[in-house]
């Protein structure tokens, strides 16, 4: 663990990313305190105002403060990212563990299902389900989670395949430990590192999917602010209000970027093959 931390610290980009991740987290958590305005306050006298002193990032078509809406929007993006990934990780770990541990036909069927799931244009399916079920933040989290567990399952399966033949597992079996105990107590703990990395990277892609859905009007519904639905307003007012397009998009870009940087940094730090190499 110590060695891992030392390696991670040496990667300046990843550390910067980590600091940014924390900063974004606090910005969202403290949104009610740091927002200059109430995100839903309509001000008909200041419609579509460009960035200025009172509204640092301008106002939208109803005179609402864009900065405040973006701060509240970050809560949506982050909670969708984390909960969707949480769901995907739990499903992926369980399915991957079962597949890798039991092997044989269980494994074959599960791998087939994963192949099938990977061949479906997932964004189409997400879009269809959200349109039918109705766009609420919970539905979005669940459906993103349900359609993105395949990568984790493959990772965990691969770990299980190699770990289940190792001596400590064979020893546990010889001592009469139950399958459940071996899976959860002995193998799972040793296979968590790559899962953690893929979860961090997964947050980034879930945020991207959520913002795309909101942009298409099938995500978080106004008046609740989200980065995606502010961008929809940006598209509608593209000829007159550049700030509605530029800032929320930049927020998505930076958030996804820093999660990716941290994920890659963790991956490199966890990979023993890269230890001692220049980095």
């Amino acid at each position, binding site marked *: 663990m110590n060695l891992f931390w030392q390696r991670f610290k040496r990667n300046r980009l990843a550390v910067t990313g980590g600091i940014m991740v924390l900063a974004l987290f606090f910005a969202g958590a403290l949104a009610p305190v740091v927002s200059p305005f109430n995100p839903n306050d309509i001000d008909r006298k200041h419609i579509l105002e460009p960035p200025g002193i009172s509204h640092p990032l301008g106002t939208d078509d109803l005179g609402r403060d864009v900065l405040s809406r973006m701060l509240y929007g970050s809560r949506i993006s982050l909670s969708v990212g984390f909960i969707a990934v949480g769901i995907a990780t739990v499903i992926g770990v369980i399915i991957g563990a079962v597949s890798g541990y039991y092997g044989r036909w269980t494994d074959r069927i599960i791998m087939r299902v994963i192949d099938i799931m*990977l*061949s479906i*244009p997932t964004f189409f*399916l997400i879009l269809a389900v959200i349109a*039918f079920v109705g766009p609420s933040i919970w539905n979005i989290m669940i459906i993103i989670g349900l359609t993105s567990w395949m990568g984790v399952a493959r990772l965990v399966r691969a770990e299980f395949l190699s770990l289940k033949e190792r001596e400590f597992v064979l020893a546990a079996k010889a001592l009469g430990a139950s399958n459940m105990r071996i899976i959860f107590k002995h193998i799972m703990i040793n296979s968590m590192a790559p899962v953690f990395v893929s979860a961090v990277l997964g947050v980034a892609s879930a945020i991207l999917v959520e913002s795309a859905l909101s942009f298409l009007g099938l995500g978080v519904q106004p008046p609740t602010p989200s980065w995606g639905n502010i961008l929809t307003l940006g598209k509608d007012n593209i000829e007159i209000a550049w700030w509605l397009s530029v800032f929320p*998009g930049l927020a998505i870009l930076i958030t996804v970027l820093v999660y990716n940087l941290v994920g890659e940094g963790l991956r490199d730090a966890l990979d023993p093959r890269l230890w001692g190499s220049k980095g």
Partner: protein
Amino acid sequence: MITYLIKRLLEMIPTLFGITLISFFIIHLAPGKPTDILTELNPKITPEAREKLEKYYGLDKPIIVQYGMWLKRIVKLDFGESFSTDRRPVMEKIWDTKQPLLERRLFITFMLNLLSMFIILIIAIPIGILSATHQYSLYDKITTVIVFIGFAMPSFWLALLLMMLFGIHFDWLPISGLKSMNYDSLPLLGKIWDRVRHLILPVFVSAFTGLAADSRFMRSSMLEVIRQDYVTAARAKGLPETKVIYRHALKNALLPIITLMGLSVPGLIGGSVIFENIFGIPGMGQLFYMSVMTRDYPLVMGILTIGAILTLSGNLLSDIGYMFADPRIRAK
């Protein structure tokens, strides 16, 4: 080799079956029925009329029976009729034989994706090779930064920025549709130029994310290959570096890219909903968006199935490409 191909083709059938089964169940089990929309639009509709309507569409039967009926028609390549008021067959909406080829939805989406894939390939491969052969150089560092940004870039935001810059600020490029209003009055060359101008932004946007991913992949694949013994051997016998890279290393470094191209098809197809929506392109993605908004089950299922067929064909093509490139597989 032929047996391998036949085996792969046969394998596609159960996969396709599985995809349609999963999609059908998910879509039909989702709460809310297409008839809800009709009732919302017309509150005077009576419960009896509604039931009659459901019966007409076969929505009153158990879902497994509905799937069986759907499957039976699919085998004959009949995707059924759209639930929308025009009641046109789904196939006609996707591939309208009365329209010229360039106006058919499936063709438009297919060509756009093919174009952006082509652009990804011809740009990403050289970028990746140069990054690998000049590892840790300034060029490598700059492209790495750009690649990371490319990974994180929401494609619809990139589209908005480019529209603002090239469409509105400079007024160089059109930002919507596939042709201008005065298209029909243009001479042949003008027509071609008009189409090209309309394609520049959408194709660039849809290629951008793939560019980042593929050039990164090419870089790591190349880095791995140039550490191999046979590359050292080629250098040791005194071959010039360009020959070592482009004749000996490149062929092997390209193999994983072929697989990656196959795997990127679902992402490209899914992405077409977004950029067809932004750029107002009358393709399959736009049709899909309209069909989910009106709960047009047959149309949704039809497009999902075609998307899945395209994806599986992409995988098959990449396997075939792999086979031609790698003699070790061909021998099997």
